[in-house]
């Protein structure tokens, strides 16, 4: 082993300080990104990825129908109206499906929202692909305005056979303060 000091105790101590620093960095450099990767891979918390799915859709499996449920919830302090336009859809795996969510801002000033998707059962998350989603970006709305927020998705043909219903939930958060910079530049 490399010797960092002639005094063996200082040598040991220096190496241990190094270990402590490495472990501190480990939290930020390894644990946080690794958790995100694992979430996407295993569908922890039903996370479905924050970027558009770009793979070419394979053949549509006409023989199978999967029920997709839509849920919309507001987090604390979010006064917007927010709901799915349809609550359930029957879809064929592999097919491209479109729907919209309805949002309205009842307050007299502009606000920015961020929708967070979550799929249940979590096992299905990896098989639920969003090709277009309002959750990829923050959604600004002027005071009193309303909007239709588009969603386009594909259910993978490899969805495990025992899953018949997939629930897609969106929670919207008020991120007006976080997005203050974005608004100012608009």
């Amino acid at each position, binding site marked *: 082993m490399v010797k960092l000091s002639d005094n063996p105790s200082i040598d040991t101590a220096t190496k241990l300080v190094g270990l402590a620093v490495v472990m501190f960095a480990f939290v930020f450099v390894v644990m946080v990104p690794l958790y995100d990767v694992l979430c996407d891979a295993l569908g922890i*918390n*039903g*996370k479905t990825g924050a970027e558009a799915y770009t793979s070419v859709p394979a053949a549509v499996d006409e023989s199978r129908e999967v029920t997709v*449920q839509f*849920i919309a*919830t*507001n*987090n*604390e*302090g979010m*006064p917007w109206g927010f709901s*799915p336009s*349809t*609550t*359930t859809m029957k879809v064929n795996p592999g097919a491209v499906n479109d729907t919209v969510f309805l949002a309205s801002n*009842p*307050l*007299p000033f502009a606000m920015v929202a961020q929708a*967070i998707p*979550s*799929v*249940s*059962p*979590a*096992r299905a998350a990896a098989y639920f692909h969003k090709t277009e989603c309002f959750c990829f970006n923050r959604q600004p709305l002027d*005071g*009193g305005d309303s909007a239709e927020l588009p969603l386009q998705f594909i259910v993978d043909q490899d969805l495990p056979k*025992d*899953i*018949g*219903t997939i*629930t897609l*939930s969106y*929670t919207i*958060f008020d991120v007006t303060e976080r997005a203050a910079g974005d608004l100012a530049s608009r």
Partner: protein
Amino acid sequence: MGFKAKRLVQAALAPVLLLTSVVCAAAGELSSVNMSPGVTVVGREIYDLHMIILGICVVIGVLVFGVMFYSIIYHRKSRGVTPATFHESTKVEIAWTVVPFIILIAMAVPATTTLLDIYDTDEAELDIIVKGYQWKWKYEYLTEDGDNVAFFSNLRTPQAEIYNVEAKGQNYLLEVDEPLVLPVNTKVRFLVTANDVIHSWWVPQLAVKKDAIPGFINEISTRTADEGVYRGQCSELCGKDHGFMPIVVNVVSKEEYAEWFAGKQAEAAEVNDLMAQTFAMDELMDRGQSVYTRNCLACHGADGEGGVGTAIAGSAIATGDVSGHLEVGINGVPGTAMQAFGGQLNDVDMAAVITYQRNAFGNNMGDLIQPIDVYNYKKGQ
């Protein structure tokens, strides 16, 4: 001395024997000392698993402590024994590494089976969103046509019982204003989430416990079996009133459930009708008081004297402009514990509680706020 020592050992053994006997008593399904087998198949399975593991632990414990106490009794210096000098044996070490390992495998098998049963994804017949709030639950029944039934479930135990002014009722702290109602013999899927911090929805007898995480959704299901009332509590620390957000589940016959559900839908329609009505002061005050007790009292006090929240008695908001009062009630005060109640209370209840706050606690403003005022305020924002 020997006699005295023996007495000492007996004294030492007594608590162990006591503990063992209590554990055995627990095996007799006394619900106050043991896990409840509950009323579901999975609950029964978990209970059996619990009893198997407990049984194995008790047996191992009796053997291990038996050897130890034998040694304590017979291998004492006061008996004049000469200590042995052995201090290692590879064979023995291997034996007591391998044997526990085998026992663990024997435990892991039923544990794995039960876990897989909990995680089964059979189609559910009923989907309910369970949403944790500081400090109450909201239940939303999902329907095909999107005409969902949703309501809040608040602690019903009055403050007077909690603060020992009145005698405590039988279901003290385990009673709510509106229980969750489920049909019997139905597979129900709970979609659990939270509005603010992490909560956990636990009903021991249904063997259901799942964390409610803000922004994400968790699911857990149960198949209801016996009709009855099952009670539970939030089991993840969620702030001040963590201990005061119980869960009550009524499992009723399918007919009764259908009736209740239709009633709920009618009630929602009725509220729509009420919106168009004008109420007299005493009607609003009565309704307002009950809304206040359920939603405001915990923070603002029984007499509007304040607590976690500011005082309402004589406050600038309650004795000032009506629109300012509506603003606070509907949209809350950002950055404080005052939530936006606009989405939690219907317009009738909102009108009633604002009227109540402006006329009770010596505020005596004489204002009368009608549902239509609340509606217009919301619309006009």
